[in-house]
């Protein structure tokens, strides 16, 4: 049992899906000769309306792919900034269902920008794995990063995600050695998320030298695009990472800007959306080599 009470989607309807938005986006950027800017914000941080305004503004500000964090009470792989973002979101009633609703609303005005949900397994289990994958795909989600489901537990969600046409993006860490790498990559689709530091989000940054060594090591084992995340804060770092790999993920730095813009009670101010999007613009300029 997968923890879901719903029927599994029929494998026989595992029809070819339209080329995934993620693959299409990376292919288009490759043709343009540049890497991707991937942004991360928590859904519902600090409230639904602001969160939706941010989502809608991200592509125009220069985000190529969008990660939406799904709030969880116990984000084991995240540092204090994202923990607090989750607490703010939960306080205003964020749920997995609500985050799917956000994506649905976003999709009405944007059919091209890939959306990846990043979060932890328990809210998905509570929702029901089978139903979640179907509903996420229907809402316009393209890929999933389920932080605490490693390849060893892939059977939990991989068949349902595949049947629904969702990419399962896996984390590769500096601790993932050459013996283990093929196994992790075999379980990955969409792109590879290279966690550039051994650590949690928002704590430190990788050195350019360590990335220059790590990315070719992964390339030897996969033809999927590679995005670098955890610890990328500045436009310069984002530009370097996007050139070295195929994309740079910026999360905590944006969450920090958002948090700093809030009222003391954690509610949004009129300038919140603009401040975050300005920062995205600066990151995007660096990624585009401007």
């Amino acid at each position, binding site marked *: *049992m997968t*923890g879901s009470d719903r029927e599994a989607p029929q494998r026989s309807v595992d029809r070819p899906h339209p080329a995934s938005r993620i693959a299409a986006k990376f292919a288009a950027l490759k043709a343009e000769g540049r890497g991707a800017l991937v942004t991360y914000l928590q859904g519902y941080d600090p409230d639904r309306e602001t969160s939706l305004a941010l989502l809608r503004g991200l592509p125009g500000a220069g985000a190529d792919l969008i990660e939406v964090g799904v709030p*969880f*009470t*116990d*984000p*084991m*792989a995240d*540092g*204090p900034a994202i*923990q607090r973002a989750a607490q703010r979101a*939960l306080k205003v009633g964020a*749920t*997995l*269902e609500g985050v799917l609703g956000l994506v649905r609303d976003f999709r009405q005005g944007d059919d091209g920008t890939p959306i990846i949900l990043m979060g*932890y*397994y*328990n*809210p*998905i*289990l*509570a*929702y029901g794995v089978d139903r979640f994958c179907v509903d996420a795909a229907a809402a316009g989600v393209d890929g999933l990063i389920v*932080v*605490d*489901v*490693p390849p*060893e*537990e892939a059977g939990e969600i991989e068949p349902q995600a595949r049947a629904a046409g969702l990419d399962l993006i*896996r*984390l*590769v*860490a*500096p*601790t*993932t*050695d050459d013996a*283990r790498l093929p196994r*992790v990559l075999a379980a990955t689709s969409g792109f590879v998320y290279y*966690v550039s*530091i*051994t*650590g*949690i989000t928002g*704590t430190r940054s990788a050195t350019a030298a360590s990335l220059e060594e790590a990315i070719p090591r992964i390339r030897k084992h996969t033809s999927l695009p590679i995005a670098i995340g955890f610890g990328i804060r500045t436009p310069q770092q984002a530009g370097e990472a996007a050139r070295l790999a195929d994309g740079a993920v910026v999360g905590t730095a944006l969450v920090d800007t958002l948090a700093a813009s809030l009222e003391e009670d954690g509610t949004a101010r009129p300038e919140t959306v603009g401040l975050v999007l300005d920062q995205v613009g600066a990151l995007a300029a660096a990624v585009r080599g401007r």
Partner: protein
Amino acid sequence: MNKPLPNTYRQGPDSQGRFGQFGGRFVAETLMPLILEVEQAYEAAKRDPAFDAEWRRLLTHYVGRPSPLWFAERLTAHLGGAKVYFKRDELNHTGAHKINAVLGQILLAKRMGKTRIIAETGAGQHGVATATVCALFDLPCTVFMGATDVERQQPNVFRMKLLGAEVVPVTSGAATLKDAMNEALRYWVANVQDTYYCIGTVAGPHPYPVMVRDFQSVIGEEAKQQMQAAEGRLPDALVAAIGGGSNAMGLFYPFLDDSSVRMYGVEAAGHGVETEQHAASLTKGRPGVLHGNRTYLLQDAHGQITEAHSISAGLDYPGVGPEHSWLHELGRVQYVSATDDEALAAFQLCSKLEGIIPALEPAHALAHVIRMAPTLPKEEIILMNLCGRGDKDIFTVARHLGVEM
């Protein structure tokens, strides 16, 4: 469930670390290689007679094992029913069962070449045990403890510091055991090269639940022999408190295939399982994934983990070890609960009748014994795990009794 019952309850976990659907290895990729390394090292250590010999030497000469089996005669007479025996793990060095598994794990960490130890703690007993063994082996030790627990377990915080450990108060979430475990896992992710995470109960990702159970099983193995010597037979019922479930697994495991032995795990009912303020994961929770394993959890309809409550910091955890979830669904162990007030009453009764001040954790087990013994015939035997002593709790108890200290 229409699955056939297993012909042994002692086979688990499988190679994926599963007890039925429970357990597993739900950790981020950064930790995964490390978890696999711990598993390999543990498998090798288990087959090494020298490892076992060293662990047992320490248990005998440092911890003071075997712990006695005590016939609680005055309590038995008071309750007027079944005979009550205590397995006295509160007499261990450091005052609780925790040190059994800490010694095993620190020996493992040394084998693995790890040079730093981290631990989470609730009541502080596991933190004290870890700090103690780290002092003995000259290893730097960092203990993560919820800020709320730092407040209510001051004596243990001071003990850990005396022993040379660094105590890190954790302020995230409700600042109790769950949050301490999150923080320890976060620290571990960032310090994987040199650090070993010494988990204090039968929870966490595989292999921790099986490893801690194996080490704690020394409790049940001794008790089985001691009961044979004292009564020439097996006990009829085992009773143990359930936080994460390590003292209970340690007592139960060697008896699981003895079908005449009934087993009761006692969860903390806090203000009552009908309120929101309890820590009864098996009684009131449902399966989910937290801290690396699938198990029963206190959670809301959306899969957000809810806060546990118990007067006992050691039971104040919204989850439970996966093997307990499995035994619960199979019906091999009965999971019941005791409230804060029942535990407080048991705490006082035990002190007055037996001259033993129990920890608040086993006081929950005793509360169930107090309910159960009078309903059973005098020939029956109840064996309870008195897994910790109450010195650490006297301030909490005094406060609840309205006594100024």
